[in-house]
């Protein structure tokens, strides 16, 4: 079976999700709080990658970050190898493409946190960062979880960008979704069914666990 591909998929999805949580939460926090007039532009730009077909986005990433572009040369200088066909490149592309799935629900959830509670935290001497982690994040939890789940699941299933940027190299950039796609295209339906069932099974367990977890952590005031 495609255990290598499965592992790669899970690794890519996990890292992408971690990066998106790490970068997306601060961005979302800023978007939810800023009074800057231009924030809607930023929100629109974050959502924009979505409207391009994934392979096309991948194509533009290859153009923009390929070895012929200045950005691509910078990438190579920093990371040590060229952008295309590398795991790091794949990760970058996945992060870009899945960003809206994480950031939009984050903003929605964080914007819903009662400001008075943040003020109460500040008045109690807790820094903005501490307040974010101790008050905003726990209260925005359902929405943050929604964004995280979307980002993870979407990265698992994504194959357009991955195919384009990753080059479908077995063991390195061939994820499970690409493998299933290949099976279907090659008319190897039995193998496709097996792999899809594996992916669905694993994902179902992960998703069910995540959602079951959330049930327990609903704030009590919502249970009264």
């Amino acid at each position, binding site marked *: 079976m495609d255990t290598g591909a499965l592992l790669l998929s899970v690794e890519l999805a996990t890292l992408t999700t971690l990066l998106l949580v790490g970068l997306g939460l601060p961005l979302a926090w800023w978007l939810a709080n800023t009074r800057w007039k231009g924030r809607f532009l930023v929100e629109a730009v974050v959502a924009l990658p979505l409207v391009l077909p994934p*392979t096309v986005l991948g194509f533009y990433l*290859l153009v923009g970050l390929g*070895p012929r572009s200045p950005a691509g040369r910078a990438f190579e200088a920093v990371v040590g190898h*060229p952008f295309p066909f590398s795991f790091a490149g794949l990760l970058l592309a996945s992060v870009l493409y899945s960003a809206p799935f994480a950031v939009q629900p984050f903003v929605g959830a964080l914007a819903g946190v009662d400001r008075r509670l943040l003020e109460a935290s500040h008045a109690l001497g807790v820094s903005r960062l501490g307040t974010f982690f101790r008050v905003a994040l726990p209260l925005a939890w359902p929405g943050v979880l929604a964004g995280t789940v979307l980002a993870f699941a979407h990265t698992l299933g994504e194959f357009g960008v991955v*195919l*384009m940027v990753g080059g479908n190299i077995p063991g390195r950039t061939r994820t499970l979704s690409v493998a299933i*796609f290949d099976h*279907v295209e*090659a008319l190897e339906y039995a193998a496709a069914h097996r792999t899809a069932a594996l992916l669905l099974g694993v994902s179902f367990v992960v998703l069910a666990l995540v959602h079951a977890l959330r049930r327990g952590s609903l704030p009590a005031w919502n249970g009264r």
Partner: protein
Amino acid sequence: GGGTSLTVAAAASLKPAVEEWRRDFEAAHPRVSVSVVFGASGTFFAQIQAGAPFDLFLSADREYPDRIVAAGLGAAADEKVFAIGRLVVWTPSGSPLDIGRDGLASVAGPGVRRIAIANPAVAPFGRAAEGALRSAGILDAVRERLVLGTSVGQAAQFATTGAADVAFLPWSLALEKELAGGRVFVLPENAHPRIELAGVVLSAAREAPLARAFLAHAAGPGGRAALTGHGFGLP
């Protein structure tokens, strides 16, 4: 409007030739409009099984039409090989590689980091490319450097963006404007497994006679001229 329409599903690599056939065919049949859907042969196969409203399927190899016939979705009599695929090695301008001078084996040289081919599992030209590398005795040496496009189009995109240093492409594609800056080395027909492009009229076709006519046109003199003009061999 008012006339009949013919829907053709054609492998993406056939696009330039098919577009020419369509023009000629429509000119010859004024009341007929031909709409062509380009895509991957594997996708078409799945869609035809699901009852896609195609009249004619022009594949990039023989295998898919054979399967169509085997599955009873087309008659054996309506299947026809109309072209032979020609594989080329494409290198961008400024590449130090000169395959004409140094032979195919030079692809395994140290200056080549990435070699783009179509995925052999799904694309006939990918299988041919793999075969060519194998007969040159360098497949194992370059396996680590292969990047697989889902289609020949994607392999070409890897090349045009500079992501790959060498690409194995159908000759037809290498003639495209975007690849014009590079150097094309046409491999001899015997350097790789033979690629037979076949078409089949689908038994679900609403316009079966027209579809047969179109396939006949493709295999006929006008069609053959277009094929050679766009880098295909003839059966």
